[in-house]
């Protein structure tokens, strides 16, 4: 049996093969790498909160400062105070994990509500929501966060609140676009003429069956953004403060030794950031290609 679906104006064939069989190797590699990174992040978070670390991340060893990687006992070497890099990198996840989830949750919940209002109701609520979206898009995010920091206090949860709220327009326009597409296909009209209650149409037919994949993808991208934002703010000195490790403040602390040619203490966390962000981005893109049937690479 062959089903047809319309994606961005073109009729494409959807065979009944499961999606991993018809997927390209590149997408599978992207998703695979992304899942490895997500697993590592979750595992690190668990290890960190259970205190199962190779070393105490705050243990200062003045005998062994700036040790290179693969030093016995310190797999990834030590930083400028002789603290174990690996342990600090693992614990550093905690700076992002819950705040990042909070930011993603805020953007998904508000974005979905706004998107449904704009797409399903249309009319005046659409105008208002488009206006709000343009308004939020007008601010450079980092400047808005600095304003909030200046007005309130540098707290990671305030920062993530702003990150989440500024991501609402992205999610809202995504959901709205989906609904408009379904409306164009007379999908919703058919639902209404069947006499289904509005809650069933919106929750089950629109959100669950048609927006699920897009929202998951948006969540991974949002997580990447939250990490990058926390890193930037840590670098600027507004994020997590020493001695509590976060990847951003580790890069910044290590940077003082950069000009002496000692790259490692700042490069290790920078690479951790790089591979993690890359993982979330590739996961989002790979899932986009697999689940939404888009192929642009």
């Amino acid at each position, binding site marked *: 049996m062959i089903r047809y679906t319309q994606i*961005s104006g073109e009729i494409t064939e959807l065979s009944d093969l499961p999606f991993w069989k018809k997927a390209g190797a*590149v997408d599978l590699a992207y998703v695979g790498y992304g899942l490895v990174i997500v697993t590592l992040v979750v595992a690190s978070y668990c290890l960190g909160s259970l205190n199962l670390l190779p070393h105490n991340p705050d243990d200062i060893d003045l005998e062994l400062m700036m040790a290179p990687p693969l030093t016995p006992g310190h797999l990834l070497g030590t930083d400028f105070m002789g603290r174990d890099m690996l342990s600090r990198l693992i614990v550093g996840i905690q700076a992002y994990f819950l705040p990042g989830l909070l930011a993603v949750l805020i953007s998904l919940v508000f974005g979905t509500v706004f998107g449904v209002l704009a797409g399903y109701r249309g009319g005046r609520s659409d105008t208002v929501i488009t*206006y709000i979206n*343009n*308004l939020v*898009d*007008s*601010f*450079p*995010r*980092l*400047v*808005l966060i*600095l*304003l*909030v*920091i*200046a*007005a*309130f206090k*540098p707290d990671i949860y305030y920062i993530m609140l702003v990150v989440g709220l500024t991501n609402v327009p992205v999610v809202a326009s995504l959901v709205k676009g989906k609904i408009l597409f379904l409306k164009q296909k007379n999908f919703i009209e058919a639902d209404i003429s069947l006499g289904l209650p509005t809650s069933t149409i919106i929750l089950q037919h629109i959100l669950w069956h048609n927006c699920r994949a897009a929202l998951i993808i948006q969540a991974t991208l949002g997580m*990447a953004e939250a990490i*990058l934002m926390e*890193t*930037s703010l840590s*670098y*600027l*000195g*507004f994020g997590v403060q020493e001695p509590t490790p976060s990847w*951003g403040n580790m*890069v*910044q602390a290590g*940077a003082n030794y*950069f*000009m002496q*040619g000692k*790259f490692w203490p*700042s*490069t290790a966390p*920078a690479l951790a*950031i*790089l*591979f993690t*962000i*890359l993982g979330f*981005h*590739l996961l989002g893109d790979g899932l986009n290609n697999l689940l939404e049937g888009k192929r*642009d*690479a």
Partner: protein
Amino acid sequence: MKLSAIRPIALVLTRELAITGFLLLGVSFVVFIILYLSPGDPFSVLLEGQLSTGEARAGLREALGAPTAWYSRYLSWLANMLTGNFGSSIRTGLPVLSEVFRVGFNTLILTIGSLIITLAIAVPIALYSAVRGTNRISWPLTMFSYVISALPVFWLGYIVIYFFTHKLGLFPLAFGFSGGDQKYRWLYMLLPIFVLGVGNGTISEVIRFLRAEMARVMAEDYIRTARAKGASVWKHAFKEGLLIPVTEMIASKIPFILGGAVIVEQVFNWPGMGRMAWQAAQDRDYPVIMGIAILAAVLVRMGSLLQSVVYVAVNPRAAEE
């Protein structure tokens, strides 16, 4: 240009200007709300440890002639701003607007320069992979763009400073905005512009968008017709496949590049708006950062104004909608 080509642009320009004004009003309101909700009100500092009841506070406001209700406070603040009075910095006491304008030009150079770098990297890769599809050359380039976009921009800045300034001595480290040889001032600017252009985290997204748009246009019937009759495909595809997507990307990426500028200015000691915003956030100098936020929003809105003008200039029918 014929009059018939100018009319739709003028139509859209007036409409967009009205929308922009309305949006900037909203921007000022958001900034006001943040400041209104913040705990550090000058009156609470004045009254610290004395009269702490809300009634006494309101009484003092009234006695000093400051408006009490939030809407009248907003209106008087807005009226001040419209006459160019953004207040003065808490730290230096200098008027905010002239201070922000003094450094704003540096940020403008940095932002526009790095936008050009971003596009100079993204456009060829996007065009190549749109026309040729995924092959042995375009796939590594795409992968490279992903890696570049995931790189923390400040670390890239350190690497570049270390190699180009410290090791090779190609570029001076101290930025000659005051003193120094003014003739070589542009040389100091190259590194930060390059770092922000490469590392602002938008390259992979820009490439994907431009490639998808170009590939979509290349599949259109009119391109096939052009090819069949031997006309230049490039000439036919340029407007819809490149010009419109590029202006769209410029407009939507300006906020990200301005955000990245905050960090790059910090790394390179670039005396711009971002550094000023950072300093202001450190000192909790909110009048300054408020001025910067509003000015940045003006810049962003200008970008989308440009986008709609280009869109209508290319496709005059859009003005009728």
